[in-house]
């Protein structure tokens, strides 16, 4: 993990300085390998050698890196394999093979993802972000940088988060979004300020100054460069200080403040000389030389320019060489040394072509990368559009299918409902027809019964007519022939009386048959008439007939029931008149709790029910009572009279 930190710091700050220590470490590692260490130690040693050879010999670094990878695969050491991919990815980055670098970083990431090595993943994400930035895939660069930032922020590694933010700011700067870049650098500076990381803060102020310069605010640029210088001086950060002085000099140069510019360049030069930064010294010397030229201090200018050119050639800095040749052109032009002018012109042109070619090649590569990126983006957009169209088509088809399914369901429901409706209709028609059939049947039966009744009535009436004829014939006989024979007279009177009684009974029956209902009042009237006739024929007996006040006047009976009640009372009275030798016969109708009660009481001699054989009359009365669902009882005691009780229930 510490080595990963070193990688991150190196990538961001371009920090060199351990090459001398590196050789010593390389030797000690080779010593370790000669002692036949275990597999894991061997893999680690190869990995370390790869790392330390990085700044010594890139080929050796690759050699040991591949050894580490091979050995890890052979021994199944996934961690070693992941580390080897990571190291090789860094090496490919160093030789500017960014695509391969990305591919190796991604292989290293899979192991770290599986083992949830979040810090390891953050480091890989950061490196992927930087690599993508180099191939101008800015969206991927920002994506990976943001992922790394999220992990560091979640783990509260504020410093690393600041480093990532700094990278993101650089991406914004490459995208020429200078304001965003500035805002991000300001955030980073606050973090470094809280952490009291003066080195980081110095770099941050330098970046902020640069951002303001891009935005054209030179006042703020100078402000932040001065702040950076203040911190770098207090902390003795010589490299950072030299950069700041150089930048300050450039700003003053732009403002044509040559004195201040030369002063700052000289400061930068002396610091870089101390640091053995030949490139930086060359740059500063050439700047100073050209400034002296601008001020007309040609001797001073020549000395500086020569010094700068010598160092530029040493470090193979072609741009610096070109700048020096350009300045020399002006110098020799002033000196009117035509040969030198031509010579330096040729040198300038040659190196310009070289730089130009290199630049063109680089720019072409960059443009191609950008073009490829744009093409890929276009292809992605096109694929997305196709996907969207396909999705839309699928959605439409889904909607249609759903619609059809709903249609089928609704049709099925409708069909089912219609079927049920028809079935219900059939059932109801069937029930209706059954009822009608039953009604027709019962109507037919009733008609049949009515016909029978009519026939019975006709018979009945016929008998009545014949009986009437008999009576009138007998009366005619009696009055027409002056019969003196008593026996004959008695016979005739007997027959006449019998026939009349029969006619009375007939009339009663006709009265009942003609009514569908007999009210209590009708019955009362009929009983009263009968009692009156009985009183006339048996004038030794006193009759009384009472109806209780509580008996409801609107009490009705069916014709048959009424007839039967009348017949029972008739029979009871007749029996009392014939057999009881009573002088008082009472008939009473009173209300009972569950209906009506009819009482026929005489104060005659009574009879012993066990001894006396009951005749047809009592049986008839019982039978009639049973027919109408009433209760009939007869109570008699010798010497105490007889009571006939008929209890008619109200629902019978």
């Amino acid at each position, binding site marked *: 993990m510490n080595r990963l930190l070193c990688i991150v710091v190196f990538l961001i700050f371009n920090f060199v300085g351990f090459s001398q220590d590196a050789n010593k470490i390389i030797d000690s590692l080779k010593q370790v390998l000669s002692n036949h260490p275990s597999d894991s130690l061997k893999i680690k040693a190869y990995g370390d050698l790869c790392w330390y050879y990085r700044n010594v010999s890139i080929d050796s670094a690759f050699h040991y890196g591949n050894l580490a990878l091979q050995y890890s695969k052979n021994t199944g050491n996934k961690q070693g394999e992941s580390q080897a991919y990571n190291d090789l990815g860094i090496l490919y980055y160093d030789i500017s093979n960014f695509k391969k670098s990305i591919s190796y970083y991604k292989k290293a990431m899979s192991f770290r993802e599986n083992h949830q090595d979040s810090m390891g993943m953050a480091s890989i994400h950061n490196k992927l972000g930087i690599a993508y930035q180099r191939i101008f895939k800015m969206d991927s660069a920002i994506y990976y940088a943001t992922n790394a930032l999220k992990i560091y922020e979640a783990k509260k590694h504020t410093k690393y988060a600041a480093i990532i933010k700094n990278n993101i700011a650089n991406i914004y700067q490459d995208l020429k979004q200078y304001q965003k870049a500035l805002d991000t650098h300001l955030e980073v500076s606050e973090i470094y300020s809280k952490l009291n990381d003066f080195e980081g803060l110095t770099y941050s102020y330098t970046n902020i100054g640069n951002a303001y310069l891009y935005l054209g605010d030179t006042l703020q640029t100078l402000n932040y460069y001065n702040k950076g210088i203040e911190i770098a001086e207090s902390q003795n950060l010589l490299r950072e200080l030299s950069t700041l002085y150089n930048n300050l000099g450039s700003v003053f140069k732009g403002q044509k403040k040559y004195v201040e510019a030369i002063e700052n360049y000289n400061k930068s030069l002396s610091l870089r000389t101390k640091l053995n930064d030949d490139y930086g010294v060359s740059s500063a010397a050439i700047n100073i030389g050209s400034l002296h030229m601008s001020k007309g201090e040609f001797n001073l200018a020549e000395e500086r320019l020569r010094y700068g050119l010598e160092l530029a050639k040493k470090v193979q800095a072609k741009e610096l060489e070109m700048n020096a040749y350009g300045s020399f052109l002006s110098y020799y032009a002033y000196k009117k040394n035509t040969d030198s002018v031509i010579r330096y012109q040729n040198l300038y042109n040659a190196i310009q072509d070289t730089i130009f070619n290199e630049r063109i090649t680089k720019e072409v590569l960059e443009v191609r990368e950008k073009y490829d990126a744009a093409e890929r983006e276009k292809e992605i957009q096109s694929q997305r559009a196709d996907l969207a169209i396909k999705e839309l088509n699928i959605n439409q088809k889904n909607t249609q299918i759903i619609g059809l399914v709903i249609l089928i369901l609704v049709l099925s429901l409708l069909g089912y409902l219609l079927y049920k409706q028809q079935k219900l209709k059939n059932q109801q028609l069937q029930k209706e027809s059954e009822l009608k059939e039953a009604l027709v049947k019962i109507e037919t039966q009733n008609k049949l019964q009515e016909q029978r009744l009519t026939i019975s009535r006709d018979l009945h009436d016929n008998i009545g007519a014949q009986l009437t004829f008999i009576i009138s014939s007998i009366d005619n006989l009696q009055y027409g022939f002056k019969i003196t024979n008593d026996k004959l007279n008695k016979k005739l009177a007997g*027959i006449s009386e019998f026939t009349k009684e029969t006619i009375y009974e007939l009339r009663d029956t006709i009265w009942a048959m003609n009514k569908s209902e007999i009210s209590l009042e009708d019955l009362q009237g009929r009983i009263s008439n009968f009692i009156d006739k009985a009183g006339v024929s048996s004038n030794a007996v006193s009759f009384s007939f009472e109806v209780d006040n509580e008996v409801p006047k609107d009490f009705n009976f069916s014709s048959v029931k009424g007839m039967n009640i009348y017949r029972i009372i008739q029979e009871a009275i007749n029996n009392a008149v014939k057999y009881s030798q009573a002088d008082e016969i009472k008939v009473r109708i009173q209300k009972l709790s569950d209906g009506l009660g009819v009482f026929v009481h005489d104060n005659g001699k009574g009879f012993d029910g066990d001894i006396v054989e009951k005749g047809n009359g009592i049986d008839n009365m019982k039978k009639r009572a049973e027919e109408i669902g009433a209760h009939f009882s007869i109570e008699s005691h010798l010497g105490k009279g007889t009571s006939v009780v008929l209890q008619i229930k109200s629902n019978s």
Partner: protein
Amino acid sequence: MVFSVFIGFVIVFLLLCIVKVCFQTIRMVRQNREKRLDLNQRLLDQELKGQVISEKNLYLNDFNQILFGRFFEINKELIQLYKMLL
């Protein structure tokens, strides 16, 4: 799109048909129930009427038998009278 709209209209139409069928069924059931109630009532009335007529018939038949008995008695008396007259 057109097809979907068409399907939608058809579904709405069918739903309205379902509603109509439901209402028709309810009306049919109600009407039929009233008819059956009426028929049942008529049936009951006829049964009652039949019962009454049957009762009358039975009674009348009974009574007719009694009357015939009496008539027979009267005939007997008349025959005796006739014999007495002879």
